[in-house]
């Protein structure tokens, strides 16, 4: 099957407008006859559900949490990009497009990214109209901050809780439609399979997580907005429940999985403290606006710090190595995430890590506190040389900007980041890879769509900060509602999809037998035992840097672990009740398949690009070495076992941007 | 508007409005009583005025009685409904960690005050009504001070009054600011109100206690 990305003809900047003008529409009376299932209620799923319901479709919305408001988009901290150019610093749709393609290391699809940049401004308008309380300046205008990998300030934010506020905005729009009866909400429900009838996605099988009941739901189209699969690494900044199950089941039913190895390791997370660790906490990238990253220059200082004999604030300025500023003077601490993460790993691998495990670097706010303090002292007419006054004023500013993050850090680490530098280390944070979609956001299964982090299209090999929120909302508010109409316009005479067909029977039986197998397995080890093992393999062999030998080992180790899982997993309780272990088991079973495909994809991609760094392909300075012959999207087709997956290539063409070495020096 | 009065917030507001009225009444009551400490004549004059003025007797008095009855009936209704909202009780609950004793026990301080009001009615109000409207005895504008002193002779009554006033103080200690909060007063003013509330809830009961003790020891 040849991949058809369905990118419209015409010049880049007119593609979307021209396309919208020509696609089929469904008239309002007919929309009432059409059902759409949306799985996931994060920014993408929530905004899509609300918008489609506003348009008149009957929407059924599913989430595994107890309320749509709890989807993990809520945890996004820093902000959302939009090419508003409110700061007048030279931003434009093209520049946002350019930064995103370059940031993604030239592995994303030009037309999609341009469309994303184009609709970005509408998102801000829409959210403000919904009552999202973005930060404002004293004149009452919207404020912006800067994020990694760009030279303009285009990030809109609501304290360190931008994701929360945007999600609550989408949730409020959903609530309005739930109240009107246009969205039927199924919370505490997990999708366990997609049902294909006559080659089209026509419904899902879902499990009611409270009663354990298996339910059939039909629709004319199914939209997956189920997020990323970073929890394959066990430890990540994802929520505990984030999983790949919906996407993986879709993959098994014919949706190609694209670039699974493109995973973002975020540079500023709180380091692991011990074996008990269940999840990692992000410290927003926005902190790099004001924080300076360093490790000691001298090994004796490192050792003294680890033994507790020396405090970081006692190390003199000249004995600190601000390695990002040293290596990348142009972007300094604001290099893109992949670059910052690898640089931290490089220092720690060289032995300069500053905590007991040797896997932490400092993020220091002392300079910012002093700078802001002096500024404030000047404004207030106080003595700029009085250290106490300056420090106090400076801390107040830092508190206003990042107070909630600092509090979060202090609660977890038990150190006061106003007084001593934070310790940070990279952690798995986002997956650029995902289900392959065409320009319409439709997968290789007709009628099956994937939006938000669940798809692959916009971020290439590395996502820039504050772009995930933008993409989720762009897909849900402004792209899918148009493109899905084109598809659904052929379904106005179809009528309701029956759920008593043999396809539904088969899918339900498959789901049930799978659950029975798990619950009756009576093995030796808990689900977490296997999940942690998988995480270790993934982190050690498919993590921040990869090589052929490790990846080959990972492939066979994951396959072995999967066999062991099915032989030895133990799940207490029954299938017809609330049973978190059973739900977890299903998710880990899918991670164990995805993990292998992940490693296979990483092995196949013999280049370094963005978050995918192969030891074999680096420049003499240790930077990523992209290879022209890999300028394509790897879309994998399921063929029974992950190892048998078949590769399809979507060649990437860049007509509006010059592909060059990605330099942040 | 009728919807408002049926809503939880409407009931709160009604509770607060009746509280305002009662707090104003307390202020007046304590002022007149204080006169008894300084001058028997002044007290008699004021009491005579209150006892015979038709505006006070036939307009203010019924409103006051309605206010009192409304406040405690509504208090009971709210308490009952709130208990129903609780569901199963916690095995371990540490209320003291986040709220004051006064605020959590308004129903109990309220009940003591209610018991006190009954005693107070038996002591003063029923004899008054009997005197004026049932037996229709001749009015003696100087009788009030003597009656007051007479009532505070037995120690048990003084003790009951003192205990009740302490409970009243606790009730007011939360009730004063709570009423303003229910009325939606803004955070900026709340600070000042908190101080005024503290002063009010200490001074008023103290003054009543002082009057009771004063007459107990000075007759």
């Amino acid at each position: 099957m040849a991949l058809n990305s369905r990118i419209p003809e015409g010049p880049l900047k007119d593609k979307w407008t021209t396309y919208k003008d020509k696609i089929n529409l469904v008239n309002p009376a007919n929309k009432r006859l059409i059902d759409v299932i949306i799985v996931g209620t994060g920014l993408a799923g929530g905004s899509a559900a609300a918008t489609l319901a506003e348009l008149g479709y009957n929407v059924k919305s599913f989430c595994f949490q107890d309320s749509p408001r709890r989807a993990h988009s809520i945890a996004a901290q820093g902000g959302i990009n939009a090419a508003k150019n409110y700061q007048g610093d030279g931003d434009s749709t093209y520049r946002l497009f350019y930064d995103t393609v370059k940031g993604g290391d030239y592995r994303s699809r030009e037309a999609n990214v341009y469309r994303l940049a184009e609709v970005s401004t509408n998102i801000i308008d829409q959210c403000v109209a919904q009552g999202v309380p973005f930060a404002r300046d004293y004149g009452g205008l919207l404020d912006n901050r800067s994020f990694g990998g760009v030279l303009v300030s285009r990030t809109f934010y609501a304290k360190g809780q931008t994701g929360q506020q945007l999600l609550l905005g989408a949730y409020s729009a959903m609530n309005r439609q739930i109240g009107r009866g246009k969205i039927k909400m199924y919370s505490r429900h997990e999708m366990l399979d997609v049902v294909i009838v006559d080659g089209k996605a026509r419904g899902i099988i879902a499990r009611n997580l409270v009663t354990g009941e298996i339910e059939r739901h039909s629709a004319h189209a199914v939209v997956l907005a189920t997020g990323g699969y970073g929890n394959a690494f066990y430890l990540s900044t994802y929520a505990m429940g984030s999983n790949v199950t919906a996407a993986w089941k879709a993959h098994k039913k014919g949706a190609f999985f694209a670039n699974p190895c493109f995973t973002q390791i975020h540079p500023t997370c709180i380091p692991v403290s011990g074996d008990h660790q269940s999840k990692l906490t992000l410290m927003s990238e926005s902190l790099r606006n004001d924080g300076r990253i360093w490790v000691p220059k001298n090994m004796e200082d490192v050792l003294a710090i680890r033994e507790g004999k020396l405090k970081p604030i006692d190390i003199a300025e000249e004995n600190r190595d601000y390695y990002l500023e040293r290596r990348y003077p142009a972007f300094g601490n604001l290099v893109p995430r992949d670059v910052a993460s690898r640089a931290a790993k490089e220092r720690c691998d060289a032995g300069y890590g500053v905590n007991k495990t040797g896997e932490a670097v400092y993020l220091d706010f002392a300079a910012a506190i002093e700078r802001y303090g002096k500024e404030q002292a000047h404004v207030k007419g106080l003595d700029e040389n009085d250290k106490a006054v300056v420090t106090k004023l400076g801390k107040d500013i830092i508190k206003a900007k990042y107070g909630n993050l600092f509090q979060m850090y202090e609660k977890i680490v038990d150190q006061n980041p106003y007084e001593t530098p934070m310790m940070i280390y990279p952690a798995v944070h986002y997956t650029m890879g995902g289900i392959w979609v065409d320009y319409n956001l439709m997968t290789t299964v007709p009628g099956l769509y994937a939006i938000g982090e669940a798809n692959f299209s916009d971020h290439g090999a590395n996502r820039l900060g504050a772009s995930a929120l933008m993409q989720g909302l762009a897909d849900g508010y402004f792209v899918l509602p148009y493109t899905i109409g084109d598809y659904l316009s052929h379904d106005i005479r179809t009528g309701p999809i029956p759920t008593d067909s043999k396809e539904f029977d088969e899918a339900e039986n498959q789901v049930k037998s799978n659950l029975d197998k798990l619950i009756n397995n009576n093995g030796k080890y808990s689900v977490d035992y296997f999940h942690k093992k998988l995480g270790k393999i993934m982190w050690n062999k498919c993590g921040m840097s990869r090589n052929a030998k490790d990846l080959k080992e990972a492939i066979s180790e994951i396959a072995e672990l999967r066999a062991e899982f099915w032989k030895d997993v133990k799940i207490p309780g029954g299938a017809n009740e609330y049973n978190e272990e059973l739900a977890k088991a299903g998710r880990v079973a899918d991670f164990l398949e995805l993990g292998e495909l992940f490693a296979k994809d990483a092995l196949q991609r013999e280049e370094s690009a963005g978050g995918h760094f192969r030891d074999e392909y680096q420049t003499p300075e240790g930077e990523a070495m992209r290879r022209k012959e890999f300028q394509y999207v790897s879309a994998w087709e399921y063929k029974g076992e992950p190892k048998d997956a078949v590769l399809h290539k979507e060649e990437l063409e860049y007509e509006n941007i010059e592909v060059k070495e990605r330099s942040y020096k | 508007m009728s919807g408002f009065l049926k809503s939880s917030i409407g009931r709160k507001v009604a509770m607060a409005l009746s509280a305002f009225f009662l707090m104003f009444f307390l202020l007046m009551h304590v002022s007149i009583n204080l006169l008894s400490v300084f001058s028997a004549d002044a007290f008699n004059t004021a009491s005579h005025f209150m006892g015979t003025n038709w505006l006070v007797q036939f307009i203010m008095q019924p409103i006051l009685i309605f206010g009192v009855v409304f406040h405690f009936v509504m208090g009971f209704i709210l308490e009952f409904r709130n208990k129903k909202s609780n569901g199963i009780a916690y095995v371990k609950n540490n209320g003291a960690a986040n709220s004051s004793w006064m605020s959590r026990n308004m129903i109990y301080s309220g009940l003591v005050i209610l018991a006190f009001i009954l005693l107070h009615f038996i002591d003063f109000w029923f004899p008054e009504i009997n005197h004026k409207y049932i037996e229709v005895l001749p009015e003696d504008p100087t009788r009030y001070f003597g009656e007051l002193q007479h009532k505070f002779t037995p120690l048990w009554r003084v003790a009951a009054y003192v205990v009740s006033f302490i409970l009243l103080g606790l009730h007011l200690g939360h009730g004063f600011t709570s009423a303003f909060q229910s009325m939606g007063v803004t955070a900026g003013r709340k600070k000042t109100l908190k101080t005024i509330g503290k002063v009010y809830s200490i001074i008023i009961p103290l003054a009543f206690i002082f009057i009771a003790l004063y007459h107990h020891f000075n007759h």
Partner: protein
Amino acid sequence: MKLTLKIWRQKNANDKGKIVDYKVDDVSPDMSFLEMLDVLNQDLIDKNEEPIAFDHDCREGICGMCSMYINGRAHGPDTSITVCQLHMRSFKDGDTIYIEPWRAAAFPVIKDLIVDRSAFDRIQQAGGFISVNTSGNTQDANGTLISKHAADTAMDAATCIGCGACVATCKNSSAMLFVGAKVSQYALLPQGQIEAADRVRNMVAQMDLEGFGNCTNTGACEVECPKGITLENIARMNRELMKASI
């Protein structure tokens, strides 16, 4: 450290439920409270017992899923955090810890420590939104100026995570802090003022319908709220409802 846990176990909504004692050894002070429960659950699974069911998801204090009444307090002894942010260094070796689900008639128990908070969703569905359809043509985001103070105050209200600690800790099981926060967020913004009267009326009516109790201004909710939502929001809701009714 070693701890004794007294945990509410309840098989399902119809079960009566009871407190069951558990012992955990080897608790590290750096563990989060939920990680301590993970250790206990691992133990229970190893012993072929059913693990304790509790709600949790993001484990960074923002999703609002975790909900436990620990030693008589919502989200445990610390303030301004959720259970997932509570660390074991807040306890001492040998401590006995009571762990119970949120209690309120409007929050029925689903299993063990998990309660049904869908009442909160329904209150929001009654009016917790601004009626604006998605379109590419809404007014420019800077078209209406909003004072920094109003935006910041709205943000403070909007920071509510809907965890339900306010209800759980309230002696009246009142949801007014939650509803007040949502009403306030919109009332403070010009975009929200157009349908402010209907919104507050409908949300309060739904809140009452769900069976939440009445606020008696004890202030417990404000103390226990992990996000520091203040009583001012309740006062504002009261004002808004009075305004809407008169």
